[in-house]
Structure formats: structure tokens, C-alpha cells
């Protein structure tokens, strides 16, 4: 019963118009983010909603075999940063990237086209 109520409030990961999508890193960590935020990335956008029959379109799940979880977490934070501050008149704060992950983040960003 509590589970049913939770599903009504939050929307799920299944179905064609689900509110959430699942991004899985190379070490198996699953990130569930809102679909609109994930569509910031051009690659994810074409995987989830492009023409053709991608398997991801059915299950709303994308697995990245080269992106580790510490990088994918930062990518998800960037999605939120981008959606929040695009076309916003407030002052845009700095997006902090520690130098240890910067190189892997660059390769992930290059792949994800964002």
C-alpha cells in the first residue's frame, strides 16, 4: 500500500513516457534521473527517443560500459546544473570539477555530447 502510493507520487521507470530513466555505470551503479535532465546529452537523447529500434527505448535504461560511477555521478550533477541555469537570469555559479576526475569527465562528455 505504501508502495502503491509512492508510485503514484513519483512516476516510474517503465513505459514509453516514463518520467525517469536509468543510467548504469560500468561498475553496476544505477542512477535514476528525470528523463528531461538526461536528454541534455545528445547521445542519450538519440538513444532514448530517436527513430529506429534501440533496445533502450523499451526499457528506458542505458548502460555505459566505459564510464565509471564517480564520473557518471558528476555527469548527472551537470545535467541538473544545466537545466537549472539555462535561460535563467540569476547569477550562474561555478561548476566545480576536481582535477582527479577532470580527464575521465572530458572523455565521458565527449562521448555523451553535452
Amino acid at each position: 500500500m505504501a508502495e502503491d502510493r509512492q508510485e503514484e507520487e513519483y512516476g516510474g521507470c517503465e513505459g514509453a513516457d516514463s518520467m525517469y530513466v536509468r543510467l548504469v555505470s560500468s561498475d553496476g551503479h544505477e542512477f535514476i534521473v528525470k528523463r528531461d535532465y538526461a536528454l541534455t546529452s545528445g547521445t542519450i537523447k538519440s538513444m532514448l527517443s530517436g527513430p529506429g529500434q534501440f533496445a533502450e527505448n523499451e526499457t528506458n535504461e542505458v548502460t555505459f560500459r566505459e564510464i565509471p560511477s564517480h564520473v557518471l555521478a558528476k555527469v548527472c550533477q551537470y545535467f541538473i546544473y544545466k537545466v537549472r541555469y539555462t535561460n535563467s537570469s540569476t547569477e550562474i555559479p561555478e561548476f566545480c570539477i576536481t582535477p582527479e576526475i577532470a580527464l575521465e569527465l572530458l572523455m565521458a562528455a565527449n562521448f555523451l555530447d553535452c
Partner: protein
Amino acid sequence: MVHLNNLTEFKYTDVTNTEFLDDIRELSCIHRNRVRWKPGRETRCCAFSSSGDKFAWSPGHGHVEIIHMFTVSQLNHGDSQRERNSITCGCNVTSMKFAPPFVMTENKFSSTSLLATGLENGQIKIWDSNNGHLLFNLSDHTDIVRGLSFSPCGIPLLVSCSEDKTIKVWDLADDGNMTLTVRQQKFPVLDCAFSPVNPHVLASVGMAKMVIVWDFVHKRSCRPARRLRGHNNDVISCSWSPDGALLATASHDTTVIIWDPHANVQITVLCHLYPLPCPIYAGGANGAWVTSVNFSNDGTKIATVCEDNHVRVWKLWNRQDTVYVVPLSKSGLQCRFSPDDQTLAISQLNGIVTLASVPCRKVLSLRHLSRLAARKAISSKMIDLMTLPQPIKDYLAYRFPL
């Protein structure tokens, strides 16, 4: 904009969009109603504090005005009550710089309120910008002090360069004592700048096409590391990108060249005269001297001041190549971006500072943000040694095409 893929090939990119910036406000003071220009009245320099809350400029005749500064639109609403300080230096001010935060254990003031001003008679006076007190008077140069630069990463060193062909290093923690004089140039040195991430790299530019990158080992030892050749006339001004990977130099030969100083490669050339003048014409008076260049703090824009009374803001890593233009009434002398990149301050020949509001403050792409973060730690030489796919290496090294 001209892209130099290898040094023998030129490819012109048409600048198709030029937009005129219109949110402009002028700051002027004591000479407001006098039309005739007199020497000594030029605003040669201006500076923003490192946190962006203070703006200092020199309206000529040795005065320095400091205001607590916000965006241009906020300035338009009744700024007469805004807090203004005024300092009298006694001699025309030719360069000024606010200090970044660093630790000074013996003194009671905070370093972010330090304002260093270089004067025409060779003195350097360091003031506390909150109350206008003179803290240090460093006098050893014998000619006009043209450039000042504080060491990054919290080290309390100040480097000054002057038309007496020397670069001097001053230790502010040691009561302003001069620790080193570098006399290796044969011509006046017109600007100097520390790399914003590496306190051991210093760039200096001067007359006779000189651009030198120094290996600044410590405060008593400084060796020239390499010389960047490519300009055809005096080099007036230099500016580092915020990740310390690129150096932009402005010269009287109508061009601004953006170098990768560690690999000694030219990345791109910004031209102010079309077509590109031949070396004889570029080496003399050509009507399009570029007097100042400044990188924005997010590394995506460059502002240049040219003798044809226009200030241009170039967007570097964007294929549309829109150039924003600010027309001026009298020729500009120096331009500076504010730390939040919202405002561009241009100091002019007639004692007026023009503040233009820069549009297009956008969320940068994750690629660009990661490149900025990665290049702060990785130097150009290390990139080629790493095992990365070649397109990533080219992107990291700012090699065209992007």
C-alpha cells in the same frame, strides 16, 4: 578570424555576425565638462578586484577612483550614493592591479584590499583600497612602470616591468623588499603576467616583437625558458587563459596571437585589418594597432582594443564566430573583464571609463568545463605522453579544428 593549422597555411573565417553592444554606461569624473584634451588626462589603466566587488580606475593626473561595483544595470539606478574612494598618487598612474588573496602574517590588513599602482616616474605605490592609506612605496625603477602582476596560489610576490628594460620582483611579506632584477631584455618591457595556475611561469612582452616565457624558479632566480616568435611589431599586452594553457598577446602589427606557450605553437590569430597586412606594413603605423587584450574568466571570450576606436569581444570556441563590437568616441587604451564576466571595462584616452554589459552568459558545455579543470593540472607536454584517443588529445591541447 584566421586559423593557423600549420604555419604556412592561412584559412580565413568570415566574421558574419557583428553585434553592437548597447548596454553601456560611462564613468567619468573631474573632467566631465571640459572638452579639450590635455596630456596627463588619459585613463591608462583600470582594474577589478579579485572578488569583483571593487573597481578602480585612474581618471588622469595621478588620481585613482575606486567604487564598489556591481553590474551595469545596477549602476544605472542612482549611483551617486555608491561608495567611492579617491586616492592621490602624485604622478600619472600607468598600471594598476588588485592583489589576489594571499596570507600575510605580520600585517593587519586583508590582502584582497591591496591595490598596487605603477606610476610614470617609476615608483610603485601599494594602497589599502578600503581607506586609502599608503602601505608600501617601492621605488627602484627609473622609467614608466608598464605592467604589474601578483603571483598566484597565495604567494605574496609582486612582479613589475618597466620601460627601463628590467623586470623586478618584490617580496611583500618581507616589507616590500626587492629580491630580483632581471636585466636580460634590450628593449622596454611593456607588460608582464603570471600564469594563473602555475607560480613558476611568467610571461613578458615588450618592444621589438618580444614575447618571452620565463621559468620563475623562486624569488631570486628567473631564467628565460623560451621566446615566442611571430609578431611583426611591438607587443603591447598579454593575457593568460584561466587554466594557464593559453597566452594571448596583442601587438601593433594589427593581430592578437593566441599561443600555447609551453609547446611554442600558435593556436589562432585574431586579425583587425582585412586582408592581413604584409610585414612591412604591419611593422609600422597601420591605423589598427591593438593596444590591449584580456581573456574572460571562463576562458571562452577575448576582448581586444584596437586603434580604430572599436573594442571587440571574440567568442573563441564557437563556430558561429559572433563578434560583439563596442564603438568608442575616443580610442581605448585598456580593457578588463570583471571576475563574473558580466561587465567589460574599457579605459579611454579622454579620461572616461566605459562599462559595457556583456551578453551571452551561458552555461558552458561539460566538455569545455572539464578541459579547463584538466588543463590546470596537465601541461602540454604531458598530453602527448598520455594514452588517449587522438581527438581527445587535440581537444585538450586546443588544437584546431575544434
